């Protein structure tokens, strides 16, 4: 007679646990302080800072996996580089890194990315992955939430895409959707802002420009990361991540200020 290793539970209990857990969370997060769209390095960094400041933070990610491009550096090589002073953020996250040359640091992509994700979870932010941004909620001339749908719905044949999206409300939305700048582009579709598109010539200081221009572009909408490049038409940049992390951190600082103003 072999002893059972795992506790005996019914299949319906497993299903119930998933449903109760998920829908309990979803219901609680129909209204958040901040919704962050995109779980790449800048979105995750913003989420961690805001959740650490005890804000109610929901992160939307269209993929199943979190982390965006932070798992790998250039040319599919899984080393990520940051320039000073962004190594301090690696330090804070407990990511081992080495100095490559003065001012340039290199870390393992999987280690850096997983540490960042876990820091966001530890800080208390919640995720909706496999969830795609669909539209913005605008109320009284400001962004007041987003409309989302299951990512797989986009892949369904047209005749069965009658799956309506749902709305989630928040005091602020952060667009961390990378080059696409999905949220900002939605505001542009409605004629509320004008984005500049990106792809300007390469210059070394483009990361600085992204950090400097991280901010509110419409009442209630803050842009961070590569979305900043798209909105402002800033020069393109190389595969280094310091700018993304610092932009996320700055987005969180601005969000905290705005939340204070809203109180």
């Amino acid at each position, binding site marked *: 007679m072999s002893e059972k290793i795992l506790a005996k539970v019914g299949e319906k209990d497993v299903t119930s646990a998933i449903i109760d857990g998920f829908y309990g969370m979803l219901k609680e997060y129909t209204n958040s302080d901040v919704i962050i769209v995109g779980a790449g390095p800048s979105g995750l960094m913003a989420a961690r800072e805001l959740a650490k400041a005890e804000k109610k933070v929901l992160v939307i990610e269209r993929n199943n996996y979190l982390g965006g491009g932070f798992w790998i*550096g*250039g040319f599919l090589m899984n080393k990520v*580089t940051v*320039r000073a002073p962004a190594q301090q953020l690696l330090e804070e996250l407990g990511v081992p890194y080495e100095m*490559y*040359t003065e*001012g*340039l640091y290199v870390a393992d992509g999987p280690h850096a990315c997983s540490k960042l994700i876990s820091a966001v979870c530890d800080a208390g932010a919640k995720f909706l992955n496999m969830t795609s941004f669909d539209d913005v909620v605008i109320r009284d001339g400001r962004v007041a939430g987003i409309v989302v749908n299951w990512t797989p719905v986009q892949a369904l044949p047209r005749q069965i895409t009658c799956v309506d999206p749902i709305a989630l409300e928040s005091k602020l939305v952060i667009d961390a959707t990378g080059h696409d700048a999905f949220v900002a582009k939605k505001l542009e579709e409605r004629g509320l*802002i*004008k984005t*500049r*598109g*990106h*792809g*300007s*010539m*390469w*210059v*070394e*200081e*483009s*990361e*600085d*420009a*992204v950090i*400097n*221009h991280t*901010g*509110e*572009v419409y009442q209630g909408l803050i842009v961070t990361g590569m979305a900043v490049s798209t*909105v*402002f*038409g*800033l*020069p393109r940049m*190389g*595969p*280094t991540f310091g700018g993304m992390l610092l932009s996320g951190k700055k987005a969180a600082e601005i969000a905290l200020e705005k939340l204070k103003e809203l109180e």
Partner: protein
Amino acid sequence: MMHMKIYVERPLWDSFQFFNTIRSFFKFDVEFEEYKFKDPHFLAYIRIRSPDKREFYDPFPIEIENERRGLIKGVIYDGVELLKHFCFNIDVSNPAVLITERLIATFGEDGRYHLRMIVMGPAAIISLKGVLYAPAKPLQYYLMHSFGFDDEIEVRVDKVLKMLLLQFYAYFKYNEIFCEKEECMLHNCHTTEEIKKVTGLCEKHRKMLKNVVNLSPLSSKKK
């Protein structure tokens, strides 16, 4: 008596190292003055947004605020518009030059913007960052950069500054635009390799400019 006025944009003024180099290069008086653009909205307006479109946008408030605070790293400006704006604010009866840290580019006949070291008209704007970035570098430099490594840029800034100032002077005084001879300071260099080949003035331009410049500093200070 001809003289030249050189404006150096704040905050570059504080760290500018070439006052004496430039003064001793020209035989006429060179006057320096600190310069500050007064219209942050305009500066934000004339930023280049796309390499292949000459389109200007009403700036976002944060862009104007960043102009005000001097947070302009990585921003590129339309050189022609910036020059027009500059000329409007200064006396152009004598040669006047603005030296700035801003990156400037001009829209070429090929339908694309190109980074520039200098933009010339009734006055001139020289971009000190443009001196570092605009001339094409050996391929190795770009390869290193595409992997995120900062390779040192090998440009003799003092030499290039003298070349650009002289080019503008020749244009201002004699309507002379560039020289074919690759050793001549009036040669329009597009690469760091071309800059290295410049040794002084060609015969024609030595005759034209011998009463204007002291050429010894250029040849004596070889790297």
